[in-house]
């Protein structure tokens, strides 16, 4: 679900960058990027399933 929301967030940032104000696009970009990094860190702390 979180990845669906991240794709949605990226689409919204693109639409705002194309049609809306620059300041709003920059703010939304920052929020989306923080969410991406948080999602990455969440998955990066999973136990590694190594094959040895």
């Amino acid at each position, binding site marked *: *679900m*979180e*990845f*669906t929301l*991240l*794709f*949605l967030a*990226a*689409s919204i*940032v*693109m*639409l705002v*960058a*194309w049609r809306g104000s*620059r300041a709003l*696009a*920059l703010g939304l*970009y920052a929020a*989306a*990027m923080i969410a*991406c*990094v948080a*999602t*990455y860190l969440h*998955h*990066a702390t999973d136990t*590694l399933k*190594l*094959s*040895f």
Partner: protein
Amino acid sequence: MTQTRAITLNALSLYAVALVLAAAFAAQLLLHELPCPLCLLQRILFAMLAIGPILNIRFGPRPSHYALSLLAAVAGAVASTRQVLLHIMPGDPGYGSALLGYHYYTWALIGFIAAIVLLAAALLFDRQFEDDGAALPPTGGLFAQAAVWLVIGLTGLNVVSTLLECGFGACADNPTVYELLKRFS
């Protein structure tokens, strides 16, 4: 590099991002290989790469717009490096099929590093940041507008595809079916 030429290059970079997103879709639909969570994150970060060029086309080239794409490229390189390292042990078959000898996440790492180098190279040309007085077409002309809508459309399709794949819960580590379709079939 003039402002007009910079905008043309930014439009071309959007077509490159669209090509990457379309190729990922092609692998998903033609080879029936569903993307894993880290693969999805890399796709999202490729889409985030497009925001800098969109802003450059709409508001004119600025270093801050290139910086947005650089941040996305670095984050994408980190995510794809992690996936390469997850499958680096000898005998590990990797995730998914390989294309020209490399798995998609390895291609993604190469793509993100290429983006970092190209963005740094683009930033070397200071003249693009000065208003050269050229009458730029509104929002970059048809070539640039088509590139922007193509990338937005492909990202929108990914919203639908990811919703079908993961449903309303957490995405599976090794997805084999579209969860939402399974629920309603």
